[in-house]
């Protein structure tokens, strides 16, 4: 195994990356199966079922029994799970019990919103984090480094909901510059969309930039201490050249990994931002699904989050390999 991998490395990073992608697809399926099993197990521990939660405070035993039958909840749990799994394998994620429409339709109504929010946040936060991380690593222990360090720390020092609420108070209530709720209307122009998403993107960026910037800084600094950097410096290369040509390729592994982790947070972790800005994304849909015990919908949300995460880490590993073929990723 080691021999073939080394050969692959010898033929270049692209081939290794391709093998990795193929292997990861297989592993990804295993992970998704595991996730669905975990979601199923944990959610079956929840008190009540979709029938009871639908009826809420007004549930009577007869009404619950009738609704249970309607939802197909009178079947044993393992049978429902296997049936769902079979459906998924055939490409059908089932019907949402509570919304009474295909799960795919429900998800399709929310996924673009979540992707838009995550994409915009990534577009803002990744370059910012790289800039801050590399800059402070190059000027390690300078006043700039300390300043940036404290600034990034201060950004994560306050709870997300407080940051979001403060932003609304300042920009919507007082200054009336930005809308307090992020409503994405079909057919709205880019300008309007950007304006209504400005505060959610800002809040989420505040949360993820620090982690990425600090990991970038740490990874770059770790490489700066290596002998090969000394060598490069002795050869008379400028600091920027050293960092971009020699250090970054070696530091890229932990950096892109940290980024993948942070960015995967932008989908499922956006629940507080979605709540405060009333943004119809996937995270609040999943919380809905938990609250209403809508298992097919809950599973579908979990699958989407899991898939997104797997794609992100796969991308991170591919980038790491392409940048530095010496690493064999597992």
């Amino acid at each position, binding site marked *: 195994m080691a021999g073939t991998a080394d050969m692959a490395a010898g033929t270049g990073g692209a081939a290794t990356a391709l093998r990795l992608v193929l292997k990861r697809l297989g592993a990804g399926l295993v992970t998704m199966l595991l996730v669905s099993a975990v979601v199923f197990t944990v959610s079956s521990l929840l*008190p*009540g079922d979709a029938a009871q939660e639908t009826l809420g*405070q007004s549930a009577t035993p007869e009404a619950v029994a009738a609704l249970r039958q309607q939802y197909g909840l009178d079947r044993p749990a393992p049978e429902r799970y296997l049936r769902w799994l079979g459906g998924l394998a055939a490409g059908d994620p089932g019907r949402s019990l509570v919304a009474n429409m295909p799960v795919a339709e429900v998800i399709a109504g929310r996924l673009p919103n979540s992707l838009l929010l995550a994409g915009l946040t990534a577009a803002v936060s990744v370059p910012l984090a790289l800039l801050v991380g590399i800059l402070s690593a190059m000027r390690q222990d300078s006043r700039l480094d300390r300043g940036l360090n404290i600034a990034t720390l201060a950004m994560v020092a306050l709870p997300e909901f407080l940051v979001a609420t403060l932003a609304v108070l300042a920009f919507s209530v007082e200054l009336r510059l930005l809308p307090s709720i992020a409503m994405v209307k079909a057919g709205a122009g880019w300008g309007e969309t950007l304006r209504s998403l400005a505060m959610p993107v800002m809040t989420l960026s505040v949360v993820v930039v620090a982690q990425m910037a600090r990991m970038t800084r740490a990874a770059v600094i770790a490489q700066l201490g290596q002998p090969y950097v000394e060598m490069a410096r002795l050869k008379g290369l400028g600091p920027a050249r050293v960092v971009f040509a020699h250090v970054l390729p070696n530091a890229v592994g932990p950096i892109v990994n940290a980024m993948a982790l942070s960015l995967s947070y932008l989908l499922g972790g956006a629940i507080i931002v979605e*709540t405060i*800005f*009333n943004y119809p994304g996937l995270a*609040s849909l999943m919380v*809905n699904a938990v*609250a209403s015990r809508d298992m097919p919908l809950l599973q579908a949300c979990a699958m989407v989050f899991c898939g997104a995460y797997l794609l992100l880490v796969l991308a991170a590993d591919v980038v790491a390999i392409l940048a530095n073929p010496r690493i064999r990723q597992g």
Partner: protein
Amino acid sequence: MTAPPPPVPPLSRRALLGAGAGLALAGLAPGGTWAEAGPRRGGRIRVAGIASSTADTLDPAKGGLSTDYTRHYMAYGGLTEYGPGLVPMPALAEALDTSDQTLWRLALRRGVRFHDGTPFGAADVVYSLLRHKDPATASKVRPLAEQFAEVRATGPHEVMVRLAGPNADLPAILAQSHFLVVKDGTKDFSAGIGTGPYRIKSFRPGVGTTVVRNDEYWKPGKPYLDEIELIAIPDEVSRVNALLSGDVQLVMAVNPRSVGRIKASPGHAVLETRSSLYTNLIMRQDGLLPTGNPDFVLAMKHLLDRDLIRRALFRNYATVANDHPIPPWHPYFRDDLPQRAFDPEKARFHLRRAGLEGLRLPIYASPAAEGSVDMASVLQEHAAQVGLRLAVNRMPSDGYWSSHWMKHPLTFGNTNPRPTADLVFSLFYKSDAPWNESAWKDERFDRLLVEARGEADPARRKELYGEMQGLVHAGCGVGIPVFITLIDGHDRRLGGLRPVALGGFMGYAFAEHVWWGA
């Protein structure tokens, strides 16, 4: 025309219903609470309720959240509707006649059409009422619908309803959003075809609803607005911020702590609605629980610091209650019942007599029951001083009603306003009621309840309901500290708002009454 509403519901008398109809048609309310400028056509507003989810529905029978009720009142019309003082007024039913409160004849309004052009008639009413009895409908008011022994069309615009027993409150019951009229045979409600003041333009569960004016609405001149967008903002602070930043023009369920901010804004105001909403302490009476001891119940009722709860929790947006569900402004309120006060000494005395000093008990509260977590904290603090150790368990809203409410010896419940005394007593206090929260059993109470329901004479009814209030106050395992005042926040340019004691948003039915004055 401008006569004040009668002190008690006129119920079955055609003459008074007719008078009420004039009042509703003219779009005028007594007391001059309408905006100075008067109604004006046109305009578009956005409105924020409390909660929405994928369970949002356009089926009136399934409505479970205030946002649902609001949406249903936009799209559908009812046989009756609530006028001032919750007096039932004729709507799609022009008259409801009965001589024995059991057999009712409904004369339906002619010339009304559904949004898709279908004429409204008796078959729609029969279908709309009977579908609640079918378990497959999953109706929230199935227990109420069980009393419809027979519903039959006796003409194209005439319906006969025979009840299982006499009930003088039928007109009030039919005005609830769940009994709004749908088209005969409807199984798929996604289009929201009703006879209501607005047509559904778009409906996305968990996201929002947009409605446009129904130009064929049967009430002349109404509704006023061109378009309403109904969304929900679950976080209260965000909801108020959205109002103050001008993104929405009307919000429901404002926290008393936010009232100051709204009043400080020159363009905004609050609408206060005194209601019979209450959050109550439940002490289970069944089994061999310490909470079933009558002395324990009295001790706990004396430990409720009603003044502190009203002041600290609700910033005085509440009315002190007397451990029964009828508020002081209700026509059937009994005013000679002494007010129970916070009295640690009496509590200690009863606790000692019950032999329960030093007892340790868990108490379950949840954000699902408004204010209950803070009430539990208050109770815990005071109980500790008389030698009763309460351990507060704050449960998440998720699953509270199905797994904790009424399931432990000490829990909290939350009861929304009901249009009649009979409804709240029947649903929550009768021995065999589905939500008899404390499992309290009192034969005399049950007999009085049935008698009052069939009684047509208001004075006699008041007497009967008065005695029932006394029984609940003295013996029931339910402690009601305060009635909570509902607070809506609105843009000052929104005219036509007035309180309806059933809920915020004018009892959820604001849509046909309001206009945009800008």
